[in-house]
């Protein structure tokens, strides 16, 4: 059952499996029906599952979340799409005050098996608000889980795991990797539980931690560094909340050095948390401080400047070099 799928198609297949598996699973969002979503991630699903299960909603994100919460209370398992990263803030209150808190509020009586999907990150030459990386907001929010795939295989499995979870999961899709291809065995079981990280390349000199869109950049950096005789181990976090610290720490204990890379502003970005907890756990093993590579503390720039804003292979390697130079 192996197929060559882009990440976009892999998510599409994952959604299809979820819709087939559980009649309580519903999709909601703007333009997800006939159009199949602006990135075609829901392509064909309304045709096959009907307008009752793949629902085009009014243009109101706060209510998309609110309605999903109500549907979840009614026993449904809603999967909502927010069209772009920068549009999710409109729904922030329903996510933070309601979705994340309902299970605790009700002392476990009310479950919120809601998946919030949206593309994130830059690099596609988009207009303002279409290249944001809001993951830290969600990861900081108790009550939510946050996952993000870096490749089609993980995308296929993770989206299904997110939907199957009885907790609310923010599923972040690295939009500039939607077109990355891989062989996906759509019949296979997921290789790892949803909350785990994965060592995607082994190495001995430094641990390079990343997730989502930056994993490929990090792998490319590792490949380039190999030529210079530097052996980089790359860890794909996959789950941002909770973090699979064990996998990261095991790696850092081996390499003694750690660099974390992401697109979001480093100030209070995921790398701050990774740095703080890795340092706490590996204080005596670290040969150099955990270094962070990421976005600047400026609003995302106009797209003609994004190549400077987004950490690229060179900036990642610069940090690796600085780490090694300690």
């Amino acid at each position, binding site marked *: 059952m192996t197929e060559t799928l882009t990440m976009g198609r892999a998510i599409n297949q994952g959604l299809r499996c979820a819709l087939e598996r559980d009649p309580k699973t519903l999709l909601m969002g703007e333009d997800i029906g006939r159009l199949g979503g602006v990135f075609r991630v829901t392509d064909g699903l309304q045709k096959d599952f009907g307008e009752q299960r793949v629902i085009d909603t009014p243009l109101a994100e*706060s*209510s998309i*979340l609110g309605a999903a919460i109500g549907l979840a209370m*009614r026993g449904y398992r809603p999967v909502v799409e927010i069209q772009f990263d920068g549009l999710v803030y409109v729904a922030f209150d329903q996510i933070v005050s309601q979705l994340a808190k309902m*299970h605790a509020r*009700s002392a476990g009586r*009310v479950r919120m098996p809601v998946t919030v999907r949206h593309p994130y990150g830059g690099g596609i030459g988009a207009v303002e608000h279409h290249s944001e990386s809001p993951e830290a907001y969600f990861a900081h929010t108790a009550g939510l889980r946050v996952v993000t795939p870096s490749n089609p295989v993980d995308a296929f499995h993770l989206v299904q795991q997110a939907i199957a979870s009885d*907790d609310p999961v923010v599923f972040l899709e690295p939009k500039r990797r939607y077109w990355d291809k891989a062989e996906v065995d759509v019949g296979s079981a997921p290789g790892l539980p949803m909350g785990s990280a994965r060592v995607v390349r082994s190495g001995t000199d430094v641990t390079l931690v990343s997730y989502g869109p930056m994993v490929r950049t990090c792998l490319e950096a590792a490949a380039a560094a190999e030529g210079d005789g530097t052996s980089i181990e790359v860890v794909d976090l996959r789950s941002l909340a909770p973090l699979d610290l064990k996998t990261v720490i095991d790696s850092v204990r081996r390499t003694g050095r750690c660099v974390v890379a992401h697109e979001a502003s480093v100030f209070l970005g995921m790398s701050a948390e990774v740095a703080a907890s890795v340092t706490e756990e590996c204080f005596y093993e670290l040969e150099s401080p955990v270094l962070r590579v990421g976005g600047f503390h400026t609003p995302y720039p106009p797209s003609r400047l994004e190549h400077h804003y987004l950490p690229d292979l060179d900036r990642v390697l610069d940090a690796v070099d600085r780490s090694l130079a300690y």
Partner: protein
Amino acid sequence: MAIPTHAVDDTCVQLLTPEGERVANADFPLDVSDDELRALYRDLVLVRRVDAEATALQRQGELGLWAQVLGQEAAQVGAGRALVSGDMAFPTYREHGVAWCRGVDPLAVLGLFRGTTNGGWSPEEHGFAHYTIVIGDQCPQAVGYAMGMQHDAAENAAMVFFGDGASSQGDVNESFIWASVFNAPVVFFCQNNQWAISEPLERQTRIPLFQRAWGFGFPGVRVDGNDVLACLAVSRQMLQRAREGAGPALIEAFTYRMGAHTTSDDPTRYRLDTDVEAWRLRDPLERVRSFLHKQQLVDDAFFAELDDESEQLALSLRDGLRALPDPSIDDLFANAYAEPHSLVERQHDEFARYLAGFAIENAP
């Protein structure tokens, strides 16, 4: 930035005058038995008693806060008794009367204000969602729930409560759109008690609130919110309409907040005693009492028994409240997520170890 003044149109559906006279309304007929009438009065009295008792308990330091329902009992009992099994109510933080009608233990409600819980009952079991404190958040949720009912082909409806102040929130207005576009079986029940904390109605709208519905394409009705019969009749009809697939409606129950916003509030800073006095003449309990009396539907024994029941209830609240167990830290960790969560587990372990450390330190 002066605010234009406007005359409030206060024509509204009324079936029982403040003087306790039954009046007919062709649009909203109400068939109600003597037993039902007595039961409604009992609800009103007991809801008021719960409220008074909670207010007193707050003053004694047993509750952190209390949001009084005083003056709004008729609106809530009328709406609450119009709901049937399988319907779902979505309250704000002041729907103690609706909670009562839905069979929620008043102690569970008091627990919220004592701080022993943020939830405290099963929404499913009672057809009564949790109190919602962020103004308006419950409205899109109610619509979603109603969409689920529709999807299930259930002949039920959701009813969502909110205040005059809440009518200004984006989420509330979005929920009007969704309800209309999806023709969802949801009734919007706005208790216009004319104040949002210190802000008068004019700060939220310059036309009567029920007319808001006109802009969204579904019916809006204003009802005398201090008239339990009118509230019952209008709610029943709108709920039935929704259950039958005719879509949403907005009910504005025109009433008055006789108490403070909450026990933390000081209404003397912003409103006149004379206003409160004027509304006291329209008390929701008095008119039913006087009607029952005039119609000779009750005797002294009825009132005596009700007094007794009310005393018992108050007593059980006082005792029950003090006996409410504090939540446990283990529950806090256990309930954050439905499924195992490595970070929360680690924090739980660490905290347990930390607490155990004290135990050891303090050991003899």
